[in-house]
């Protein structure tokens, strides 16, 4: 079994603070903790996009930040850039650009992406320089730590940690399996 081992619960379910694709009352729930500088997350990104397209309105997908900044020095700033874009209603567009340009995540690069997305670039720069979203990113990290995030990407399917990696088939199968009730299976 690939998906063996403990499956700790997502301690903070998706809510209004989160960046979510799909309807809030969707039957299926997928949450990713990711890092814009992590090569595995970049590889998972198009797979997640396929899953979102495939399940349509049946699925809500939430992305939370988990920058491992000691090994990925630009990851934390990139996460804050996504939040700064979110403040101007362009989270997912920035999210896609950051993964597409994973090797170019210095502040000047981020400002270029903000310009491409037609954001208010001076505001975007000011907010990043002021660290306005540092706490927001750290909230994601702490929620991940308390939920058993053990690297990136870590996925939660129906609010339980998924240990089976990020291949399309594995994630689709897990999503297709109905959520188990809280009582353990007999």
């Amino acid at each position, binding site marked *: 079994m690939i998906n*063996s*081992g*403990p499956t*700790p619960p997502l*301690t903070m379910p998706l809510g209004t603070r989160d960046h979510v694709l799909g309807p809030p009352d969707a039957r299926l729930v997928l949450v990713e903790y990711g*890092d814009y500088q*992590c*090569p*595995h997350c970049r590889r998972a990104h198009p797979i997640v996009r396929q899953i979102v397209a495939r399940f349509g309105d049946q699925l809500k997908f939430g992305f939370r930040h988990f920058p*491992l*900044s*000691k*090994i*990925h020095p630009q990851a934390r700033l990139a996460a804050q850039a996504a939040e700064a874009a979110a403040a101007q209603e362009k989270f997912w567009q920035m999210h896609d650009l950051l993964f597409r340009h994973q090797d170019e995540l210095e502040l000047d690069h981020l400002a270029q992406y903000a310009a491409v997305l037609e954001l208010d670039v001076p505001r975007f720069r000011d907010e990043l320089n002021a660290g306005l979203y540092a706490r927001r990113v750290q909230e994601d*990290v*702490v929620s991940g*730590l*308390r*939920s*058993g*995030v*053990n*690297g*990136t990407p870590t996925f939660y399917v129906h609010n339980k940690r998924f*240990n089976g990696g990020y291949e399309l088939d594995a994630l689709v199968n897990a999503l297709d399996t109905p959520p188990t009730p809280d009582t353990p299976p007999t």
Partner: protein
Amino acid sequence: MENVSSSSILSPGTVAPDFCLATEPGKLLRLSDLRGQPVVLVFYPADWSPVCGDQLSLYNEILPEFERFNAHLLGISVDGPFCHAAYRQHRNLDLTLLSDFEPKGAVSRQYGAYDSKNGISQRAIFVLDDKGIIRWSYLSPISINPGADGILAALEELQRE
């Protein structure tokens, strides 16, 4: 099967066996010198695991979370001190790594956390209170990075007392 019986590792309530191991070439650390603060012992199979965001990188990243509890986190494997030094430098690790190197795996054995078939420490975690008593222990399947939630919950429990 990768499941290992957790009955083998030392359980909560046990006094943590004292040890003196190298932290880096020529420098030793004695566990009992850390009395007065919580200690987290993280036994792990080997340096140089091939994934990014592995267990130690994760703990290294969140050292400030452990420091909030005044806890000292120690990684332990059978790799020698020069290996640890190279590994720490390469991975940009700030956390302390101990070498259970000679006699090989002796401390890991004392904690019931040695895989004698493969000659490596198991992926086992012990949270010790300020008196050196084991308060929480956990043996993870060797291929599964256990994350930090269990450690943080145990430290929180200690702080509440």
